[in-house]
């Protein structure tokens, strides 16, 4: 087992005995060596081109060890009021990615459970106002190698199969206050007769509202 310039990395009993995961990014070559007694240089750390003796190397089989890096995202967090009809886009350039590497990359928007909500070309292309529901989102940068399985809206990033790496996430908080539905009334009063005109307690009921009024114990 050598690196791409012939340095001997290992002398395994069989290729399948080698765990390439811990070797880091790079290319390896697997060879089969036949030799007579007395071969010099068959040692980890030396170079296969420096063998001295009677030997012959097979052709090599390459082993490419990819190590995509999602990089580091800077920016945010962002908070939007959704459902108000005002487009909620992350400003262009408001998220910066550094130190990402990999054959492919993709912006990914998920909910806080990792479910993929969108795969935009840029974070600023997403209008968070129109997405259904009051769900906080996470924006990630994904680097991956060819063959990744599961990169699809509606699936979960925990189910990816392949060689990939995510950046840190940037949170997007989507707030959506709900005024609720009032039931009761209409009420009709005789004004100016000196009799207090109050809506009876409990005559208006409120349902479906979000938020709380600590003073509102009795309507």
């Amino acid at each position, binding site marked *: 087992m050598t690196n791409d310039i012939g340095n001997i990395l290992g002398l395994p009993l069989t290729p399948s005995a080698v765990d390439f995961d811990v070797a880091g990014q790079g290319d390896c070559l697997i060879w089969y060596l036949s030799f007579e007694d007395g071969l010099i240089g068959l040692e980890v750390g030396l170079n296969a081109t420096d063998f001295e003796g009677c030997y012959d190397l097979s052709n090599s089989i390459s082993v490419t060890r990819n190590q995509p890096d999602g990089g580091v995202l800077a920016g945010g967090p962002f908070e939007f*009021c959704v*459902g*108000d009809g005002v487009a909620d886009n992350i400003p262009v350039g408001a998220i910066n990615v550094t130190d990402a590497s990999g054959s492919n990359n993709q912006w990914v928007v998920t909910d806080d459970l990792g479910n993929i909500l969108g795969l935009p070309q840029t974070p600023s292309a997403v209008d968070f106002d129109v997405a259904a529901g009051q769900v906080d989102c996470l924006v990630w940068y994904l680097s991956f190698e060819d063959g990744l399985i599961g990169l699809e809206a509606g699936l979960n990033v925990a189910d990816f199969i392949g060689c990939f790496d995510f950046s840190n996430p940037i949170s997007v908080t989507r*707030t*959506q*206050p*709900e*005024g*609720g*539905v*009032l039931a*009761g*009334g*209409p*009420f*009709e*009063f*005789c*004004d*100016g*007769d*000196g*009799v*207090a*005109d*109050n*809506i*009876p*307690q*409990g*005559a*208006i009921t*409120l349902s479906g*509202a*979000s*938020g*709380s*009024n600590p*003073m*509102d114990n*009795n*309507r």
Partner: protein
Amino acid sequence: MAQTQWIITDNLGNILGLPQMPSAVDFDGLGTGVCFVWNLSFELGLAGLETGLNVEDFEGCYNLSNPISVIRNTPDGGVLEGGPFQFCAEDGIPDFIPAGSNSLTGNEGNNSAWVVTDLNGLILGLPQCLLLLILSQLELAFA
């Protein structure tokens, strides 16, 4: 975390009050008109939540409920002119207030009725038309 607030507006959305609860509002004395009761849910930072401003001018993250209408009526009995009238009762001669001998001005309200009472306010009759009233018979009937 959203907060909530009860809002009373006029029919143009002008904020008349921000009560702790709708039942705390005494609508008497505000004059004829229509008020609306709303529930507002909003995030911190809402601008414009102040009496005298208009809910259309809110700036921030908020949502209003449907409104509940409160109708404030101010009926006015108006002013009667005419009379006083004097009749000789129980003489067998019908005693009608002559047509055109009185007038009503300034009355207002969804409903109205003529009311005949004695001097103590006891209702003696609710005639459809004052001209049809036969006072002598009325007194006999309600005596």
